[in-house]
Protein backbone atom coordinates (compact mmCIF):
# COMPACT_ATOMS: atom_id res chain seq x y z
CA UNK A 1 0.00 0.00 0.00
CA UNK A 2 1.15 3.48 -0.75
CA UNK A 3 2.02 5.72 2.19
CA UNK A 4 -0.57 8.23 0.98
CA UNK A 5 -3.41 5.91 2.05
CA UNK A 6 -2.17 5.85 5.61
CA UNK A 7 -1.89 9.63 5.63
CA UNK A 8 -5.47 9.94 4.37
CA UNK A 9 -6.71 7.66 7.17
CA UNK A 10 -4.77 9.69 9.73
CA UNK A 11 -6.27 12.95 8.41
CA UNK A 12 -9.81 11.50 8.61
CA UNK A 13 -9.28 10.25 12.17
CA UNK A 14 -7.85 13.61 13.23
CA UNK A 15 -10.82 15.50 11.79
CA UNK A 16 -13.39 13.16 13.34
CA UNK A 17 -11.67 13.74 16.69
CA UNK A 18 -11.69 17.50 16.14
CA UNK A 19 -15.42 17.47 15.36
CA UNK A 20 -16.01 15.48 18.54
CA UNK A 21 -14.00 17.94 20.64
CA UNK A 22 -16.01 20.81 19.20
CA UNK A 23 -19.49 19.29 19.46
CA UNK A 24 -19.67 16.94 22.44
CA UNK A 25 -20.50 18.30 25.89
CA UNK A 26 -19.49 15.47 28.21
CA UNK A 27 -15.85 16.03 29.27
CA UNK A 28 -15.22 12.27 29.26
CA UNK A 29 -16.14 12.11 25.58
CA UNK A 30 -14.08 15.23 24.91
CA UNK A 31 -11.07 13.41 26.41
CA UNK A 32 -11.81 10.38 24.22
CA UNK A 33 -11.91 12.62 21.15
CA UNK A 34 -8.57 14.16 22.15
CA UNK A 35 -7.22 10.61 22.17
CA UNK A 36 -8.56 10.21 18.63
CA UNK A 37 -6.70 13.33 17.49
CA UNK A 38 -3.47 12.11 19.10
CA UNK A 39 -3.92 8.74 17.43
CA UNK A 40 -4.35 10.37 14.03
CA UNK A 41 -1.10 12.23 14.60
CA UNK A 42 0.57 8.99 15.72
CA UNK A 43 -0.48 7.21 12.55
CA UNK A 44 0.96 10.01 10.42
CA UNK A 45 4.22 9.92 12.42
CA UNK A 46 4.58 6.17 11.96
CA UNK A 47 3.73 6.39 8.27
CA UNK A 48 6.45 9.02 7.79
CA UNK A 49 8.84 6.90 9.84
CA UNK A 50 8.19 4.01 7.46
CA UNK A 51 8.59 6.32 4.48
CA UNK A 52 12.07 7.43 5.53
CA UNK A 53 13.06 4.09 6.99
CA UNK A 54 14.37 5.41 10.30
CA UNK A 55 12.95 5.13 13.78
CA UNK A 56 12.69 8.76 14.85
CA UNK A 57 8.98 8.93 14.10
CA UNK A 58 8.32 5.82 16.15
CA UNK A 59 10.13 7.30 19.15
CA UNK A 60 8.08 10.46 18.78
CA UNK A 61 4.91 8.35 18.62
CA UNK A 62 5.92 6.63 21.87
CA UNK A 63 6.47 10.03 23.49
CA UNK A 64 3.05 11.12 22.24
CA UNK A 65 1.55 8.02 23.87
CA UNK A 66 3.26 8.95 27.15
CA UNK A 67 1.88 12.48 26.97
CA UNK A 68 -1.57 11.06 26.18
CA UNK A 69 -1.38 8.80 29.23
CA UNK A 70 -0.47 11.81 31.41
CA UNK A 71 -3.31 13.81 29.92
CA UNK A 72 -5.79 11.01 30.63
CA UNK A 73 -4.49 10.74 34.18
CA UNK A 74 -4.92 14.47 34.91
CA UNK A 75 -8.17 14.80 32.95
CA UNK A 76 -9.85 11.88 34.69
CA UNK A 77 -8.62 13.19 38.05
CA UNK A 78 -10.24 16.52 37.26
CA UNK A 79 -13.49 14.83 36.24
CA UNK A 80 -13.57 12.86 39.49
CA UNK A 81 -12.89 16.08 41.44
CA UNK A 82 -15.72 17.84 39.56
CA UNK A 83 -18.04 14.94 40.33
CA UNK A 84 -17.13 15.01 44.03
CA UNK A 85 -18.09 18.67 44.25
CA UNK A 86 -21.48 17.88 42.70
CA UNK A 87 -20.88 20.24 39.80
CA UNK A 88 -22.57 19.44 36.49
CA UNK A 89 -20.44 17.23 34.26
CA UNK A 90 -20.89 19.35 31.19
CA UNK A 91 -18.26 21.53 29.55
CA UNK A 92 -20.83 24.23 28.74
CA UNK A 93 -21.83 24.60 32.38
CA UNK A 94 -18.26 24.68 33.68
CA UNK A 95 -17.48 28.20 32.59
CA UNK A 96 -15.92 29.57 35.74
CA UNK A 97 -12.41 28.85 36.89
CA UNK A 98 -13.17 29.59 40.53
CA UNK A 99 -12.18 27.08 43.16
Amino acid at each position, binding site marked *: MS*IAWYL*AVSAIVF*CVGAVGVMTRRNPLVVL*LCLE*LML*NGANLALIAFSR*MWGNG*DGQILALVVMTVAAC*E*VCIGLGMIVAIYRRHLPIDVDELRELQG
Partner: protein
Amino acid sequence: MSSVVFFIAAIGVISGAIGVVMLRDPFYSVLALVAHLLSLAVLFLLLRSEFVAAVQVVVYAGAVMVLYVFVVAYVGGESGSLSERLRGPGPVGSGLRLGGAILGGALLVELLIALLGTGLEAINGQGAGYSGGPHAFGTPAYIGKLLLTRFLLAFEVASFLLLIAAVGAVVLARRRGGLGEEDEADRMTPLDLLRPQGTGTMAEGVGRRP
Protein backbone atom coordinates in the same frame (compact mmCIF):
# COMPACT_ATOMS: atom_id res chain seq x y z
CA MET B 1 -3.04 -9.39 0.70
CA SER B 2 -1.67 -6.40 2.58
CA SER B 3 -4.11 -4.08 0.84
CA VAL B 4 -7.07 -6.23 1.96
CA VAL B 5 -5.82 -6.12 5.55
CA PHE B 6 -5.24 -2.39 5.20
CA PHE B 7 -8.79 -1.69 4.05
CA ILE B 8 -10.35 -3.86 6.77
CA ALA B 9 -8.23 -2.16 9.44
CA ALA B 10 -8.84 1.31 8.00
CA ILE B 11 -12.61 0.75 8.03
CA GLY B 12 -12.30 -0.39 11.65
CA VAL B 13 -10.24 2.68 12.54
CA ILE B 14 -12.61 5.17 10.91
CA SER B 15 -15.83 3.53 12.10
CA GLY B 16 -14.43 3.31 15.62
CA ALA B 17 -13.58 7.01 15.50
CA ILE B 18 -17.05 7.92 14.24
CA GLY B 19 -18.56 5.69 16.91
CA VAL B 20 -16.68 7.57 19.63
CA VAL B 21 -18.13 10.84 18.42
CA MET B 22 -21.67 9.74 17.58
CA LEU B 23 -22.61 7.31 20.34
CA ARG B 24 -24.66 8.83 23.13
CA ASP B 25 -23.60 6.70 26.07
CA PRO B 26 -19.96 7.40 27.15
CA PHE B 27 -19.51 3.73 27.99
CA TYR B 28 -20.16 2.74 24.37
CA SER B 29 -17.83 5.54 23.29
CA VAL B 30 -15.07 3.95 25.34
CA LEU B 31 -15.75 0.55 23.77
CA ALA B 32 -15.69 2.12 20.29
CA LEU B 33 -12.33 3.67 21.16
CA VAL B 34 -11.01 0.24 22.15
CA ALA B 35 -12.05 -1.14 18.74
CA HIS B 36 -10.44 1.89 17.09
CA LEU B 37 -7.17 1.34 18.96
CA LEU B 38 -7.02 -2.36 18.09
CA SER B 39 -7.55 -1.61 14.40
CA LEU B 40 -4.94 1.12 14.60
CA ALA B 41 -2.47 -1.42 15.99
CA VAL B 42 -3.06 -3.52 12.86
CA LEU B 43 -2.20 -0.48 10.73
CA PHE B 44 0.97 0.02 12.77
CA LEU B 45 1.90 -3.61 12.14
CA LEU B 46 1.39 -3.08 8.41
CA LEU B 47 3.80 -0.15 8.67
CA ARG B 48 6.38 -2.51 10.21
CA SER B 49 6.42 -0.91 13.64
CA GLU B 50 5.90 -3.98 15.78
CA PHE B 51 6.96 -2.48 19.08
CA VAL B 52 4.67 0.54 18.80
CA ALA B 53 1.77 -1.75 17.87
CA ALA B 54 2.42 -3.92 20.94
CA VAL B 55 2.62 -0.83 23.17
CA GLN B 56 -0.60 0.45 21.63
CA VAL B 57 -2.46 -2.75 22.46
CA VAL B 58 -1.00 -3.31 25.92
CA VAL B 59 -0.78 0.22 27.28
CA TYR B 60 -3.49 2.07 25.41
CA ALA B 61 -6.20 -0.48 24.74
CA GLY B 62 -5.40 -2.26 27.99
CA ALA B 63 -4.41 0.08 30.78
CA VAL B 64 -5.66 3.50 29.74
CA MET B 65 -9.04 2.19 28.65
CA VAL B 66 -9.48 0.36 31.96
CA LEU B 67 -8.98 3.75 33.64
CA TYR B 68 -11.67 5.22 31.40
CA VAL B 69 -14.08 2.38 32.11
CA PHE B 70 -13.61 2.85 35.85
CA VAL B 71 -14.25 6.57 35.69
CA VAL B 72 -17.30 6.15 33.44
CA ALA B 73 -18.66 3.57 35.86
CA TYR B 74 -17.92 5.85 38.83
CA VAL B 75 -19.21 9.11 37.41
CA GLY B 76 -21.94 7.50 35.37
CA GLY B 77 -22.73 8.71 31.91
CA GLU B 78 -26.23 9.73 32.89
CA SER B 79 -25.65 13.31 33.97
CA GLY B 80 -24.10 14.39 30.70
CA SER B 81 -26.68 12.78 28.45
CA LEU B 82 -29.48 13.82 30.84
CA SER B 83 -28.64 17.51 30.56
CA GLU B 84 -28.32 17.10 26.80
CA ARG B 85 -31.74 15.49 26.75
CA LEU B 86 -33.26 18.19 28.96
CA ARG B 87 -31.92 20.97 26.87
CA GLY B 88 -32.99 19.18 23.74
CA PRO B 89 -31.80 19.81 20.22
CA GLY B 90 -32.39 23.53 20.47
CA PRO B 91 -31.56 25.89 17.63
CA VAL B 92 -28.37 27.09 19.31
CA GLY B 93 -27.11 23.57 20.01
CA SER B 94 -27.84 22.24 16.54
CA GLY B 95 -26.32 25.35 14.96
CA LEU B 96 -23.15 24.88 16.95
CA ARG B 97 -23.09 21.21 16.01
CA LEU B 98 -23.48 22.03 12.34
CA GLY B 99 -20.76 24.66 12.65
CA GLY B 100 -18.47 22.11 14.26
CA ALA B 101 -19.11 19.60 11.49
CA ILE B 102 -18.45 22.24 8.79
CA LEU B 103 -15.23 23.30 10.51
CA GLY B 104 -14.17 19.65 10.75
CA GLY B 105 -14.90 19.09 7.06
CA ALA B 106 -12.90 22.17 6.11
CA LEU B 107 -10.03 20.94 8.28
CA LEU B 108 -10.18 17.55 6.55
CA VAL B 109 -10.02 19.11 3.09
CA GLU B 110 -7.12 21.29 4.16
CA LEU B 111 -5.23 18.38 5.69
CA LEU B 112 -5.78 16.18 2.66
CA ILE B 113 -4.52 18.93 0.36
CA ALA B 114 -1.52 19.48 2.61
CA LEU B 115 -0.68 15.78 2.94
CA LEU B 116 -1.50 14.42 -0.49
CA GLY B 117 -1.10 17.46 -2.70
CA THR B 118 2.48 18.14 -1.81
CA GLY B 119 3.83 16.31 -4.82
CA LEU B 120 6.59 14.64 -2.86
CA GLU B 121 7.70 11.56 -4.71
CA ALA B 122 8.21 9.44 -1.62
CA ILE B 123 4.65 9.89 -0.32
CA ASN B 124 3.26 7.96 -3.25
CA GLY B 125 5.79 5.17 -2.87
CA GLN B 126 6.00 2.07 -0.76
CA GLY B 127 8.47 3.58 1.69
CA ALA B 128 12.05 2.67 2.37
CA GLY B 129 13.36 -0.82 1.85
CA TYR B 130 12.88 -3.35 4.60
CA SER B 131 14.88 -6.38 5.56
CA GLY B 132 13.91 -8.74 8.31
CA GLY B 133 15.94 -9.94 11.25
CA PRO B 134 16.03 -9.51 15.01
CA HIS B 135 17.48 -5.97 14.81
CA ALA B 136 15.39 -4.76 11.87
CA PHE B 137 13.42 -1.54 11.72
CA GLY B 138 10.70 -1.31 14.34
CA THR B 139 11.62 -4.31 16.49
CA PRO B 140 11.98 -3.88 20.28
CA ALA B 141 15.76 -4.15 19.97
CA TYR B 142 15.86 -1.31 17.46
CA ILE B 143 13.53 0.94 19.48
CA GLY B 144 15.34 0.18 22.72
CA LYS B 145 18.70 1.02 21.21
CA LEU B 146 17.36 4.32 19.90
CA LEU B 147 15.68 5.19 23.21
CA LEU B 148 18.79 4.54 25.27
CA THR B 149 21.29 6.20 22.97
CA ARG B 150 20.02 8.95 20.71
CA PHE B 151 16.77 9.78 22.48
CA LEU B 152 17.90 9.30 26.07
CA LEU B 153 16.86 12.85 27.02
CA ALA B 154 13.36 12.38 25.61
CA PHE B 155 13.09 9.07 27.49
CA GLU B 156 14.05 10.67 30.81
CA VAL B 157 11.78 13.67 30.26
CA ALA B 158 8.88 11.30 29.54
CA SER B 159 9.54 9.43 32.76
CA PHE B 160 9.53 12.68 34.76
CA LEU B 161 6.32 13.71 33.03
CA LEU B 162 4.67 10.44 34.07
CA LEU B 163 5.81 10.95 37.67
CA ILE B 164 4.44 14.50 37.75
CA ALA B 165 1.14 13.36 36.23
CA ALA B 166 0.76 10.57 38.80
CA VAL B 167 1.38 12.98 41.69
CA GLY B 168 -0.98 15.51 40.14
CA ALA B 169 -3.76 12.97 39.73
CA VAL B 170 -3.47 11.91 43.36
CA VAL B 171 -3.57 15.55 44.49
CA LEU B 172 -6.57 16.30 42.27
CA ALA B 173 -8.67 13.31 43.20
CA ARG B 174 -7.95 13.10 46.92
CA ARG B 175 -10.83 13.40 49.33
CA ARG B 176 -11.30 16.91 50.66
CA GLY B 177 -13.17 17.25 53.94
CA GLY B 178 -16.25 15.24 54.73
CA LEU B 179 -14.53 13.02 57.29
CA GLY B 180 -14.14 15.58 60.12
CA GLU B 181 -10.75 16.60 61.50
CA GLU B 182 -8.02 14.04 61.41
CA ASP B 183 -7.12 12.09 64.51
CA GLU B 184 -4.17 13.86 66.16
CA ALA B 185 -2.94 10.78 68.00
CA ASP B 186 -2.36 8.76 64.87
CA ARG B 187 -0.36 11.38 63.08
CA MET B 188 3.38 10.67 62.78
CA THR B 189 5.77 13.58 63.24
CA PRO B 190 9.50 13.64 62.54
CA LEU B 191 10.09 13.63 66.30
CA ASP B 192 8.61 10.18 66.51
CA LEU B 193 11.62 8.84 64.71
CA LEU B 194 14.07 10.46 67.16
CA ARG B 195 12.71 9.46 70.53
CA PRO B 196 13.26 5.97 71.95
CA GLN B 197 10.63 3.41 71.20
CA GLY B 198 7.77 3.16 73.67
CA THR B 199 8.15 6.53 75.41
CA GLY B 200 4.90 8.21 76.28
CA THR B 201 2.91 5.00 76.28
CA MET B 202 1.07 3.17 79.03
CA ALA B 203 3.78 0.52 79.08
CA GLU B 204 6.35 3.12 80.13
CA GLY B 205 4.12 4.19 83.04
CA VAL B 206 4.25 0.74 84.59
CA GLY B 207 7.95 0.40 83.96
CA ARG B 208 7.96 -2.18 81.19
CA ARG B 209 9.21 -0.31 78.20
CA PRO B 210 9.84 -2.54 75.20
